[in-house]
């Protein structure tokens, strides 16, 4: 017998957790001497009040959809992939190599190739921790953390010593050729006399991210592999009894996860920066954790949570611009979301379960 109805599990608990995080964030804003209501108003106008704001919100949301899906897929196999940051960096390296080394005739072909390259590089970076977890029992959380640092050092080396154009002081690659530039929302949706999304970085990869949400949903709930991943995540012994190989599932789930994290690079590297710079990911890999936790590892939940964090990111940037509140407020909110939806889940869940049990008893 379920302890409480499904809607309470998927909607009520995340909402309560979010509310708690919001209340605490408001207290933090109060404590540093600013007005939380004004802050929210400013964030809403800044992030959602214009197509320019939306352009940034959706750009950030695209990043978080990829990294959120990455964490979510691994969660389904009960693996905690904390290495999205490193995998996304390597994805950026893949995109940079493919964009700079091949003279692409058109952006659409370049985008397909970049998707493949970024997914391949991200998956490759996840492959070693996956193998070590599956075959040698090394804890995936620790190895993926280590691989984040190794990725940062590796990227630093590649940019400074190998990929930097001769004579340049800046540790970054050359600009990608014109033909690989992705269409931005501005060029896609503007008409001659009505320019929208002016100067905002949102681009066509947003739709790739949405597509990825659908594909992940179909994979997890409509394929045999997805079933095996969920079965393994639910009970390892049960899965083994059903003839599912833990080694195979661990490695495949991590490869998919790393590939998704790597694909973030088509948005931030190919779509926005149009070259590879140091620290291209700016923490988006870690935000994936909050996004996946809040979205309850469901692609639709991830989609909504990514939009929310996109809003928080753009809103936070506006706050930093117009008030004394630094951008780091978003990091605090992110921490509170992870804390309440992830670590303190039982704090919200236990009283609710009691409440529903009590209500059911009274009904009987």
């Amino acid at each position, binding site marked *: 017998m379920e302890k409480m109805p499904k809607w309470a599990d998927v909607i009520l608990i995340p909402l309560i957790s979010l509310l708690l995080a919001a209340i605490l964030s408001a207290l933090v804003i109060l404590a540093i001497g600013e007005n939380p209501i004004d802050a929210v108003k400013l964030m809403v106008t800044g992030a959602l009040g214009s197509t320019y704001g939306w352009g940034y919100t959706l750009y950030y949301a695209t990043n978080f959809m990829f990294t959120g899906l990455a964490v979510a897929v691994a969660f389904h196999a009960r693996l905690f992939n904390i290495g999205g940051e490193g995998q996304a960096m390597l994805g950026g390296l893949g995109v940079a190599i493919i964009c700079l080394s091949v003279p692409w005739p058109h952006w659409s072909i370049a985008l397909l190739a970049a998707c493949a390259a970024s997914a391949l590089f991200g998956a490759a970076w996840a492959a070693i921790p996956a193998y070590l977890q599956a075959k040698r029992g090394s804890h995936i*959380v620790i190895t993926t953390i280590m691989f984040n640092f190794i990725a940062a050092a590796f990227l630093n*080396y590649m940019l400074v010593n190998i990929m930097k154009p001769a004579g340049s002081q800046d540790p970054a690659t050359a600009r990608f050729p014109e033909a690989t530039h992705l269409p931005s929302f501005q060029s896609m949706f503007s008409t001659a006399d009505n320019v929208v999304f002016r100067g905002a970085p949102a681009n066509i990869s947003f739709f790739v991210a949405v597509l990825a949400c659908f594909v992940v949903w179909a994979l997890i709930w409509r394929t045999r592999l997805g079933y095996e991943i969920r079965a393994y995540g639910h009970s390892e012994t049960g899965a083994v009894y059903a003839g599912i190989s833990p080694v195979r599932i661990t490695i495949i789930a991590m490869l998919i996860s790393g590939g998704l994290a790597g694909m973030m690079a088509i948005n931030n590297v190919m779509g926005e920066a149009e070259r590879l710079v140091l620290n291209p990911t700016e923490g988006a890999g870690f935000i994936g954790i909050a996004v996946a936790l809040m979205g309850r590892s469901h692609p639709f939940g991830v989609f909504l949570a990514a939009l929310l964090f996109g809003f928080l990111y753009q809103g936070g940037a506006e706050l930093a611009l117009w008030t004394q509140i630094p951008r780091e407020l978003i990091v605090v909110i992110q921490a509170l979301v992870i804390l309440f939806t992830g670590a303190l889940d039982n704090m919200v869940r236990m009283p609710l379960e009691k409440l529903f049990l009590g209500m059911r008893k009274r009904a009987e």
Partner: protein
Amino acid sequence: MEFFVTLIQVLDSTIRLSTPLLLACLAGLFSERAGIFDIGLEGKMLMAAFFSAAIAAVTGSVWLGLLAGIASSMLLSGLHGLASITFRGNQLISGVAINFLASGLTVLIAQSWFQQGGRTPSLFGGGRFEPINFPFAESLSGVPIFGPIYSELLSGHSILVYVAFLMVPATWWVLYRTRFGLRLRAVGENPAAVDTAGVSVVGLRFAAVAICGVLCGIAGAYLATALQAGFVKEMTAGRGFIALAALIFAKWRPWHAMWACLLFGLLQAVALRFQNIDLGGIVIPVQMMDALPYILTVVILAGFVGKAVPPRAGGEPYVKER
């Protein structure tokens, strides 16, 4: 002779750079030996670094700063305990949350208190831990070999450095020679047995997490008030994770932890001093030195060179049988 002088300087800086790693590593050792994984060492150090520097800057007393640092780190420890012991949440997720909380809150509060872009004012005088000079350090420095070792390598560090290295035998003694230590190790391997013996699993684990908070607090205070003169944004720079790596490298044992931290400190000292190292035609890039602690840890974790086996009940919340 020139080589010897350089060697002494590098080793001297190794000791300075190993100290925060060692304190954080021992902090993690207490927590993980009791079965509570802690990837929030970084966050606790960062929080302590900020509050120690902030209070030392305001009051002018480094000792009050140290206390504030320890208190703030213990607060985060309490949060970790609440999430992972009381509410049986995921310890790793809780650690991640604590790291972000510290990373955001320190800058937010620093900006609100000092308006200097997320840093504290520079500390001077009584606001910093001053180096302690051993007796006769000055007069013995002329003696060949022994002189520089005594007066430059061993003497002239701040008190927290000596505290850190004294914590190694102390930790060993507590863990292996006291009843508390035996129970602490038992609770990390088989909490049910400890529970059956009538000892509180929750109490022991909270005690371990509290010790972890104190040590992380000292580590953070050392960073901001002894190694450097004030807090800057993200000043821990991954040291909490290097400490975690050292802990695995040492296979959760105190003396080995010291050697691991000295090794990783040496790598940092060498990277700081030499940048790229030219070994007769083969250049080791500085990034390799940065990545080496992590690479070594992965190799150890993979079990190709002696397998690292964590405490058996690590990461698992304890549920009493009913």
